[in-house]
C-alpha cells in the first residue's frame, strides 16, 4: 500500500493496533467517513457504532479505544493541536469522547494519521511508539506503576525528546472508572474513565513523533479564514482578556455571583470563600506563567508554583471540584491536589464531585468515614487510594452514582447517566440544565455550553430563567459542539467565532464545499448516531434526567428559589430533534440525516 500523500486530510491513514497479538496495520481513511463524520469525535463514534457489539463490558478486550484528530489539526487554524479519545465508557456505559490539548494531536496528524484504533488486550504492559509512518509496540514494564510525569519523561528519553506522550497513571492501570489520559504532563482527556479503558488493554502510553506537514487544500482561502479567526479572537474580551489573564478560573467569581457555584455537593450555590479560590487570587498567589496548547493564541492554561514546585493548572472545574464542592477554601491545597490527580491520572471533576458526594453521605450518616466538608485531612491519601483501588478509595473510584447507590442514597450523586455534573448548578440556568440532561455522554458542560449566552452574554445575553427557546438553543450548541469536536478544536474559540467561521476553516483546509448550516447538519448526524449507540446500549428517555436535588429550590444566593423546569423543555427538545416521545430518532429524521441504514 502506498504512503498517503498527506496533502489532504482524507488521505491520512487509520492505524489499527491489535494489542492481543501485537500487530499493527494501516488502512486508508474512507472518503465517505470524512465527508459524513469529519474526524475526531465523529469518526470515532462511527467506528465504534459499526464495530462494537451491544452491551459489551467497556473494560473487556473487545472494547475499542480510538485516538483521533480532525481535518484542521496541525494546520494554521488556531487551537488545532488537540486530539479526541473515543470509546465506550466504563463510568457511564455510553458512547464517550474526551479530548485534550497540548501538542499530541498535531504530532499524530503530522505523522500521517487521522486516527489510531486500539483493540484487544496485551498480555503485558506496552506502549505504542509512532515515529512518523513507523509504528512499533514496545514493552512498558519499566514505566508500569509510575506516575504520568515520570512515564512521560522516561518514554521521551527512550524514544525522541521531541515526541509527544499521552499516557495513563496508576489509576488507569488499575482500571479506576475515573481514570484520565494525560498528555504534556497536565493536559487531560479527563472524563468518563477513558484512562481505565486504556489500562484494561495494558496500554500504558502512546508516543508519537510527526514531522510531516498537514498540507491544506486551498491555502489562499485558509489564510483568509485564519486571519479572520485570529482577529476575532483578539477582538473578543473573553479570549483576549479574561482567559489569558486569569485562565479558566476567571469563572469562579462570575458563577459564584450568580449563585451557581455548587457548594457542599450542590446543597448550596454560593461559596462564602469564593474570593479565596478565584482567578484573581490564583494570579496573585500561585501564577508563574501562561500555558499555550499547540497553535493557541489564547493561552488559558496556567503554570502555578505550589510548595516550591511548578505544576499545571488548576482549571476552573478543578478548583470547584476539589474546592467549593467539598467546602475547601485553600487554593494551594487545591492546586497540589490537582497536581496529584494529574500524576495519578485521575479526572479531577469526577474525583472532587465524588468526594463531595461521600462527604454528604457521611454528613447524613449514610457512610461511616472521616470525611467532613471543609476538611482536607486525609484527602490526599484518599485520592491515592482511589488510584490504587484501596479501601474507601476503591468505592469512590466507581464514581458517585455507584457510591451513593451502595450507601442507600442514590439521590446524593450529582450525576447524569453516571457522569458527574460539573461546576454550574443547573437551577440557575435552564438551557444549560437541559444540556446536562440530554448530553450523550452524561453530565457534561461542554456539549452545549449555554453558560455563554445565559451567563456571560456571549454572543448575547438570554434570560437564564426562561425555558422558551432553550430547546432550540441547546440543539444548536449540541450540533455545533459535535462538529467542533470532530474538527477537534478548542471550545473556547466559540466565544469569538460563529458557525460560519468553523465552516470556512474546514473548507479552506480540505476543499470540502460546506457552509454553516451544512456544518450543523454534520453535527446533527453525529449527535443522532451517538443517540442510536446509547439506545442500543439500553439507555432511554428515562436517562435524560437530572438528580432530584435540582427540583428543590436553592435556599439563598443569586439563584435562590429556582428549580430546573426540565419537564417544560424535554418534550419540545425531542420534537425539535425529530425524535418520538421516548426520545428515539424517527425513521424520517434518520433518513434525512443519512443514517437510515445504520
Amino acid at each position, binding site marked *: 500500500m502506498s504512503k498517503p500523500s498527506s496533502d489532504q486530510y482524507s488521505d491520512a491513514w487509520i492505524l489499527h493496533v491489535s494489542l492481543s497479538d501485537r500487530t499493527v496495520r494501516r488502512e486508508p481513511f474512507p472518503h465517505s467517513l470524512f465527508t459524513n463524520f469529519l474526524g475526531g469525535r465523529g469518526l470515532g463514534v462511527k467506528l465504534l457504532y459499526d464495530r462494537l457489539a451491544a452491551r459489551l463490558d467497556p473494560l473487556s478486550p473487545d472494547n475499542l479505544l480510538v485516538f483521533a484528530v480532525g481535518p484542521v489539526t496541525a494546520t494554521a487554524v488556531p487551537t488545532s493541536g488537540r486530539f479526541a479519545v473515543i470509546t465506550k465508557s466504563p463510568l457511564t456505559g455510553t458512547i464517550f469522547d474526551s479530548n485534550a490539548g497540548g501538542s499530541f494531536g498535531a504530532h499524530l496528524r503530522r505523522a500521517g494519521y487521522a486516527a489510531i484504533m486500539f483493540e484487544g488486550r496485551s498480555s503485558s504492559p506496552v506502549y505504542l511508539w509512532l515515529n512518523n509512518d513507523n509504528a512499533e509496540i514496545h514493552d512498558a514494564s519499566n514505566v508500569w506503576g509510575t506516575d504520568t510525569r515520570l512515564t512521560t519523561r522516561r518514554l521521551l528519553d527512550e524514544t525522541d525528546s521531541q515526541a509527544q506522550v499521552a499516557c495513563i497513571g496508576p489509576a488507569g492501570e488499575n482500571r479506576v472508572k475515573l481514570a484520565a489520559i494525560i498528555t504534556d504532563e497536565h493536559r487531560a482527556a479527563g472524563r468518563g474513565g477513558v484512562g481505565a479503558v486504556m489500562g484494561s488493554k495494558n496500554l500504558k502510553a502512546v508516543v508519537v513523533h510527526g514531522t510531516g506537514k498537514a498540507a491544506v487544500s486551498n491555502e489562499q482561502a485558509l489564510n483568509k479564514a485564519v486571519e479572520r479567526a485570529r482577529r*476575532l479572537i483578539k*477582538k*473578543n474580551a473573553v479570549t483576549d482578556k479574561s482567559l489569558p489573564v486569569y485562565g479558566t478560573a476567571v469563572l469562579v467569581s462570575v458563577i459564584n455571583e*450568580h449563585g451557581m457555584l455548587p457548594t457542599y455537593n450542590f446543597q448550596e450555590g454560593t461559596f462564602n470563600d469564593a474570593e479565596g479560590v478565584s482567578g484573581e487570587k490564583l494570579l496573585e498567589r500561585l501564577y508563574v506563567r501562561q500555558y499555550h496548547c499547540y497553535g493557541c493564541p489564547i493561552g488559558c492554561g496556567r503554570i502555578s508554583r505550589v510548595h516550591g514546585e511548578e505544576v499545571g493548572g488548576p482549571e476552573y472545574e478543578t478548583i470547584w471540584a476539589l474546592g467549593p464542592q467539598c467546602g475547601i477554601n485553600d487554593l494551594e491545597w487545591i492546586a497540589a491536589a490537582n497536581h496529584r490527580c494529574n500524576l495519578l491520572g485521575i479526572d479531577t471533576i469526577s474525583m472532587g464531585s465524588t468526594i463531595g458526594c461521600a462527604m454528604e453521605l457521611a454528613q447524613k450518616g449514610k457512610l461511616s468515614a472521616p470525611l467532613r466538608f471543609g476538611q482536607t485531612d486525609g484527602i490526599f491519601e484518599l485520592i491515592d487510594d482511589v488510584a490504587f483501588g484501596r479501601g474507601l478509595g476503591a468505592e469512590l473510584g466507581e464514581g458517585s452514582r455507584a457510591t451513593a447507590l451502595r450507601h442507600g442514597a442514590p439521590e446524593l450523586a450529582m450525576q447524569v447517566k453516571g457522569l458527574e455534573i460539573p461546576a454550574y448548578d443547573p437551577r440557575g440556568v435552564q438551557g444549560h440544565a437541559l444540556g446536562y440532561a440530554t448530553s450523550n455522554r452524561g453530565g457534561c458542560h461542554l456539549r452545549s455550553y449555554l453558560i455563554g*449566552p445565559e451567563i456571560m*452574554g456571549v*454572543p*448575547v*445575553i*438570554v*434570560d*437564564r*430563567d*426562561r425555558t*422558551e*427557546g*432553550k430547546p*432550540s*438553543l441547546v440543539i*444548536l450548541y449540541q450540533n455545533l459542539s459535535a462538529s467542533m469536536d470532530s474538527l477537534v478544536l478548542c471550545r473556547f474559540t466559540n466565544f469569538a467565532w*460563529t*458557525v*460560519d467561521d468553523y465552516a470556512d476553516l474546514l473548507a479552506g483546509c480540505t476543499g470540502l464545499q460546506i457552509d*454553516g448550516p451544512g456544518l*450543523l447538519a454534520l453535527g446533527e448526524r453525529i449527535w443522532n448516531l451517538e443517540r442510536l449507540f446509547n439506545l442500543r446500549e439500553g439507555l432511554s428517555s428515562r436517562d435524560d434526567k437530572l438528580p432530584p436535588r435540582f427540583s428543590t429550590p436553592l435556599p439563598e444566593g*443569586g*439563584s*435562590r*428559589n429556582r428549580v430546573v423546569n426540565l419537564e417544560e423543555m424535554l418534550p419540545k427538545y425531542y420534537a425539535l430533534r425529530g425524535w418520538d416521545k421516548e426520545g428515539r430518532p424517527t425513521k424520517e429524521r434518520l433518513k434525512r440525516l443519512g443514517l437510515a441504514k445504520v
Partner: protein
Amino acid sequence: MDLTVERLAKMIDHTELKPETKREKIKQLCEEALTYHFATVCINPVHVQYAAELLKDSDVKVCCVIGFPFGATMSSVKAFEAREAVKLGAQEVDMVMNIGALRDKNNDLVRSDIETVVGASGSAHIKVILETGFLTDDEKKQACVLAKEAGAHFVKTSTGFGPMGATPHDVKLMRETVGASMGVKAAGGIRTFKDALRMIEAGADRLGSSSGVALIEDFRWAQYSDAWTQPDKPCWTCPSRQANLAKQPKEIYLYYKQRCLTCPDRDQNIFND
C-alpha cells in the same frame, strides 16, 4: 425592519473615546470601519486629523465629540473646538449639552449653547448628547425640543462615561419627542447585536458603540436561532435598574427607584441579574 448586516453596519458610529487611546488604536479603528463600512468613527478631537487622513475618499465619516464628556465648558470653547475639528476633517460633531443649565430650566442657555456649536460647524451634522442618566423623563423631552429648535440633526442618549447607558425606554421617548425628521442616536452600553436590535426597535437610527465589530460579527448568529431575541426580563432594559446613587444626584436616583414601586412588572424584580 428587514435588517441586514450591511444596513446594521451603516448605522454604527465605531467609537473609541478612552483618554488613554493610542494612535495605533485609532488606526485599527479606522481600518475596521473601512472593512465593515461603518457610518463613522467616533473619536476625540486630538485624533481627528489622523483619522481623516486614513479615511480620506472613503464612505466612512469622521465624527468628533465636543465638550466631552461633561458638556460643562463655555459655549465659545465648544464652538472653537467644533470649528477646529471640522477644519481638520470632522464631518459629524457630537456635542455634550449644558446639562446643569437644563436641570436649572435655563432653556435659553441650553438652546444658545447648541446654536453656537451648530453655527461653528458648517455643514457637519450635529448630535446633541443629553446624558440621560442625569435627567428625568420630562427633562429629556425638554432637551430634545431645545436641540431641535437649535438646529441640531440628532439627539443622542449618553456619553458612555455618565451614570447610565442607552435604554430602549429613553430612545423611544426621544424618538416620540423629536419625530421622524431628526435622528436619534443610542450610545452607551451597546455591546451586542441584541442590544442594537432593541435600540433600533425603539426608534434609534444611529448606534454608538465601541463594540462595532462584535455587533456585526455576532449578528451572523441571528440566522441560527430565534432564541436570541426572546423577551428579556423587563428590568434588564429599564433605566431604573441602572440607577446608581454614587453616580447620580440623589433626587434623580430616587426618581428612578420610585418608579419601581409602581411598575407593572414589579413582581419580576426579584433577582439580582
